[in-house]
């Protein structure tokens, strides 16, 4: 688009833009490359000046150290599984809740609809740190500390996901819904069989949003998961990096290991990750 490639001057411009793009990408990927290479180095090699981008010898003990932990309890594996459970179930539940609400808010007229929508959107303006303590007290009263529901429930409602479902469903053809009603499907049936099943792209992007949020979540698991076996990866990283006997190489190894699952997910579902952005552009009512 935009640029033609006909005249020599066009080609020069193109070449310039291409090299600029390469520079931008290099700069953006530099920290990630650093993380990967440093994870194979002993601490003092990481701080040699200038930095050697290829380790003198590849050291794998950093990875053992990262997984085993300083007490060799291998709790990392359990914590990783916890993170997966929490992130996956939050993602699954949140798309159902967002789907239902998005459907209700886009296809039904009822009193207070706009108010409810604005109220739900207002959540974006509340910093988590501000409501963390009352939230914790609520969770404790519900007996949710050290449980998976405790880690999951407060994040099932995902404002972005909901917003996106609503935007997507607004363009959902009414004819299909009416056809369903004529065929005698119940309202719930219409939702499941016609709406939900035909919204895969929106669902996938909303699910990814929730998954990422939970994978990244630090403060809440720190408060609510007090037992070692209920902790998640971000809390493990904080604990590991703070211990006196962890060196920088092992820290980078933990960082690599913690990033692998999400990067794999990202590469396999890249279509939906990139699609997640459409919500902003479809924001006109």
């Amino acid at each position: 688009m935009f640029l033609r490639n006909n005249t020599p001057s066009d080609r020069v411009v193109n070449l310039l833009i291409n090299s600029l793009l390469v520079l931008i990408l290099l700069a953006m990927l530099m920290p990630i490359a650093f993380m990967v290479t440093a994870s194979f180095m002993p601490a003092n090699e990481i701080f040699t000046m200038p930095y050697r981008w290829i380790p003198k010898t590849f050291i794998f003990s950093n990875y053992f150290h990262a997984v085993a932990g300083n007490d060799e309890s291998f709790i990392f594996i359990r914590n990783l599984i916890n993170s997966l459970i929490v992130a996956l179930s939050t993602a699954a539940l949140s798309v159902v809740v967002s789907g239902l609400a998005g459907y209700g808010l886009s296809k039904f007229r009822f009193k207070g609809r706009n108010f409810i929508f604005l109220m739900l959107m207002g959540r974006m303006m509340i910093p988590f740190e501000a409501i963390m303590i009352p939230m914790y007290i609520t969770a404790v009263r519900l007996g949710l500390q050290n449980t998976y529901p405790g880690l999951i429930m407060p994040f099932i409602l995902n404002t972005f996901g909901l917003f996106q479902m609503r935007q997507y469903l607004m363009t959902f053809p009414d004819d299909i819904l009416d056809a369903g009603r004529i065929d005698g499907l119940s309202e719930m049936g219409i939702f499941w069989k016609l709406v939900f099943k035909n919204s895969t792209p929106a669902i996938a992007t909303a699910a990814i949003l929730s998954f990422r949020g939970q994978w990244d979540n630090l403060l809440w698991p720190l408060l609510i998961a007090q037992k070692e076996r209920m902790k998640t990866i971000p809390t493990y990283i904080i604990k590991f990096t703070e211990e006196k006997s962890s060196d920088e190489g092992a820290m980078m190894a933990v960082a690599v290991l913690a990033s692998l699952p999400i990067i794999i997910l990202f590469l396999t579902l890249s279509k939906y990750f990139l699609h997640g952005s459409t919500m902003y552009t479809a924001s006109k009512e």
Partner: protein
Amino acid sequence: MKYIGIEKKKARWGYMFVAPAVLLFFMFSLYPMLNAFYNTFFNIKLLSLRAPKFVGLKNYIFVLNSPSFWNSMKATALFTLGAFIPLTIFSLIFGLIVTSRMRNQKAIQLLMYTPAVLSSVVAALIWMIIFDPRGIGNSIVNNILQTHGIDHRWLTDPVMLRVSTVTIYVWKYIGYFTIIFVTGIAKVPESTLEAATIAGASTMQTIRLIVLPLLKPTTLMVSIVTMLNCLKSFSTQYLFTQRGAPLEPLNVVTLNIYNTAMRDLNISRACVMSFLLFLVMMILTLSRMSSSERNVTEY
């Protein structure tokens, strides 16, 4: 059974569908928020077993008179401006560059997006080591500027600290917003662009007169979301100060809220600050929306 009109019936289903979301909202957002607001009028201390006393607007007066709060407002404002303007402008430019490429568009987008999938804890960890005086931050910058052995003091100089936090933030989110613009640009009708070319418009003219006006709604959404996220930003600043960076330039409102509650145990004052931050966010969002509404180009 009494006959219920079809509209009424539909309305009832509407309520049913939004009920789970509303219930979760009440439990984990509205209740904590009202609780926090109620707390602002009492002198509640965490850990204290004594019954809290009603103090009226005393907490508001204290916070509004405290230099630490205004320093935090300044830190938040500087961070937000510092991150929000480059993020919006550069993601728009990157978006234009990416769409202008014929080949490898998907691959470019994927690579740009990668930093956004890393968790903030991991990002802060990597950058802490990069910004170590002996780390690659200094060596790369010294290499580019052809200076030797200059310590750029990423984590100690107040100006550099702000630059460092903004760098991390922009690095992490620019790919995400670039892709939003890519999607937005892709929606510009091909025929419009062709018409412009036929009419003899140059590339710059096409971008300025056709693409940019059509991107207004996208830009508006991106800027509001970025602004809100910047105002709420917490984890980078928190992890930096935990590692020994000076607090003052990094003491954004959210961090101040956190310290006031967790270190000073003064939950009431923390709630006052949260409420004031909420007000600021609301005013900014509403004014941003209304200012843009007046000149959105329809297509």
